[in-house]
C-alpha cells in the first residue's frame, strides 16, 4: 500500500506544481502551493506508518503550522498588492528584473 500512497502523493505534488506554473491568479497559485504541501504531508504520514515511527506525523504537523503562518502572511501580501495595483495577477508584479 505504501507505494500507492506515495504515487498519489507524487501525482498531487506534480499537479500542484503545474498549477503554480500555469495559473496567474496569485490566490490560485497559493492554493496550488498548499496542494503541494499537502502532498508532502501525505508522504510523511505514509512513511511514518511504513517505518513504524511517529516522527513523520510530527513533521507533518509542523508543516501544517508553517503552512498556516505562510498563508496568513502571503494572503496579506496579496491583499496589499491588490489594494495598490487593482490586480491579483502574478505576472503584473514583474518590476524586479534586468
Amino acid at each position: 500500500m505504501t507505494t500507492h500512497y506515495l504515487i498519489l502523493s507524487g501525482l498531487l505534488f506534480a499537479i500542484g506544481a503545474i498549477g503554480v506554473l500555469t495559473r496567474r491568479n496569485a490566490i490560485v497559485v497559493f492554493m496550488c502551493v498548499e496542494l503541494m504541501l499537502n502532498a508532502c504531508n501525505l508522504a510523511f504520514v505514509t512513511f511514518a506508518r511504513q517505518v513504524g515511527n511517529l516522527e513523520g506525523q510530527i513533521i507533518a504537523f509542523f508543516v501544517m503550522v508553517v503552512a498556516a503562518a505562510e498563508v496568513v502572511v502571503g494572503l496579506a501580501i496579496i491583499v496589499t498588492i491588490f489594494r495598490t495595483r487593482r490586480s491579483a495577477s502574478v505576472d503584473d508584479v514583474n518590476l524586479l528584473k534586468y
Partner: protein
Amino acid sequence: MGETITFWVLAVISVGAALGMVFNRKAVYSALMLGTVMLCLAVLYAVQEAPFLAAVQIIVYTGAVMMLFLFVLMLVGVDSSDSLVETLRGQRFWAAIAGLGFAALIVLAVGNAVFSTQAGLAAATAQGGYIRSIALLLFTKYVFAFEITSALLITAALGAMVLAHREREEKKVTQKEQSRARFLGDRPSPLPGPGTYARNNAIDMPALLPDGSVAESSVNRYIARYDVERGLLPEDPKLAEAIKHRAEEESK
C-alpha cells in the same frame, strides 16, 4: 481490503479534484476543489493511523486556511476569472514537460523501490496510546521546535496586521459633521423606501409618491443596474423608465 477500497475511491476523487482546481477558471471553484482534496487527504490520514493529523487537517486546513482563502477571494472579487491566454511564451509547454516529467520520475522511483511490509504504529504507540505518544514526542523531543512555531505564528499574525493595515489619511468624519452636511444638502430627510405604494412589495420596485409620480431615489442604484442588466424591468413603462434612469445615474 477496506483500506484499499477507501484509498482508490479517495485517490480518484482527490486527483480529479486537484486537476479541477488547476484547470478551473474561477478561483472560488478552485478553492472548493482544494477543500475537497484536503478532506480526502484527512480521511487518508485517518486510515493511515494518524487520527490526530486528520483532525488537525480538517480543523486547520479545511477550516481555517480554506476559509481564509475564500475570505480573501471575497475581498479581491469573486467574479474575477482568469484569462485563458498564456502570456509567457512556452510556459505551458515547458510547465507540462517539467511537471509530467517530475511526476514520471517520482512514479519511476517509487515504483522501483521495494518496501518491506508496513511496520505499523502499534509498537510506537504501545505505551499510553496514540495521543499520549504524539504528545510525548511533541513536548519532549520536539518541544523546542514546537515553541518556535508559536513565535512563528505570532510573527505571522503581526506581519499580516502590518501588511493589511491602512493608515487613515484624512480626519475621521464625526457624526456632528455628517449631520450638518445632511441638513445643508438637498435632502435632510431619509430616502423613501421602495415598494411602499407599489403593487407588489419588492425592493426593486420604486415607490409612488402621493401624487402618483415615481420616487426614483427609493430604488437602490445597484439593484436598478442589476435589473437593467438582466432585463427584469417591470411592465409599467413609467416604472421601467424610472429604474432605467436610476441605473444611468449609477453608471455616471
